């Protein structure tokens, strides 16, 4: 399958949005979407971490796991790589860019257990992307996710000011309804680009 990398990038943001069509990364979408500013911070950190870990995992998978024919342990290796690189980024930020650490530091430990970091690596293996496509797919997915969380939190901020939400719907349930409507809207992008 020979799709142009740029197409993969666009497809990962809109028609194949990782949050709204593959339903991944829901926990932070529900928990951290109360405030627009925090949501923005989380989105930026996710873009950075997802791209970084996908690149590292691509090298690990293609240079170490494939030649030694040990794809079976890829889950363990991927999750360790993710945890280690997040830890490393946190330490580097603390040492060299303290203001950034203050801004994004609280999000980094949370990202380790964010499904989309692992999901991007797994999709990359499943679809047999080469290096350029991996970078495009990872950054596109992360940008798509960031767009989603920022949109949801903006809607939620306005909604909580004016709406009289029934008691049982408050909190996570109303977020799911917002996400449902958003994903209906994103289905409109459906025919734009086809990737596997």
């Amino acid at each position, binding site marked *: 399958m020979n799709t142009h990398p740029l197409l993969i990038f666009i497809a990962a943001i809109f028609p194949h949005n990782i949050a709204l069509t593959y*339903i991944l990364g829901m926990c932070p979408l*529900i928990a951290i979407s109360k405030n627009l500013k925090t949501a923005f911070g989380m989105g930026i950190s996710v873009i950075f971490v997802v791209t970084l870990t996908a690149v590292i995992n691509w090298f690990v998978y293609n240079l170490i796991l494939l030649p030694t024919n040990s794809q079976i342990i890829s*889950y*363990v290796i991927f999750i360790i790589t993710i945890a280690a690189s997040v830890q490393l980024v946190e330490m580097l930020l603390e040492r060299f860019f303290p203001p950034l650490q203050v801004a994004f530091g609280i999000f980094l430990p949370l990202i380790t257990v964010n499904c989309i970091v*692992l999901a991007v690596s797994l999709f990359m293996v499943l679809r047999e992307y080469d290096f350029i496509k991996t970078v495009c797919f990872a950054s596109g997915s992360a940008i798509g996710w960031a767009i989603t969380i920022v949109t949801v939190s903006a809607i939620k901020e306005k909604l909580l000011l004016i709406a009289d939400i029934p008691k049982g719907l408050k909190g996570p*349930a109303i977020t799911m309804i917002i996400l449902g409507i958003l994903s209906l809207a994103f289905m409109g992008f459906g025919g734009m680009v086809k990737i596997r």
Partner: protein
Amino acid sequence: MFKKIKKLTYTRPFRIIINGLWKDNPIFCMVLGICSSLAITNRVENAIAMGLGVTFVTVATSVIISAMRNFIPSRVRMITYMVVISTFVICVDQFLKAFFPTISEAMGPYVGLIITNCIVMGRAEGFAMKNPVVYSFLDALSCGIGYTYTLLIISIIREILAFGTILRYRVMPQTWTNWVALAMAPGAFVLLALYLWIMRTLAKVEPEK
């Protein structure tokens, strides 16, 4: 007899089981593990496989972590959980690939994503790290079953409305028009929202501020 049953309801194992199944149900009270519960529930068979897989991984992880809880330094406990969890997820993945290749194909990367399912991690961190093996086992088992029955309810509704079948046996008349949106993401979101609404009203969950 009645007194005996009432007395039983105050014992610790009983309380743990009730908490997992109803009061602290992973999906509608703690709202954990949503990704997998939505993404794979368009077919009942996938939901059964996912539920049992998560139950197995949660139980195994909780027992192991609980047995090792005095030897794990608290600074590296997260990565310990991760390694233990992903080892068991590999077992589930290989099992599905060997015995149920069609289900394994349909679930794709979502089997691997059991690793980041917050329920497994949540039980290990919140319960197994502080409690003896027997209680951890009960807690993990009841949470797993609580998760599985929620998945079953959602997937049955979705499969009936979206395909007119249950486990691929046709239950709706031939003239039934499939609700395609329910097989895809938007239907899943709205259905889960309604489910959360009903269950949280029934279980009297207080919304957090």
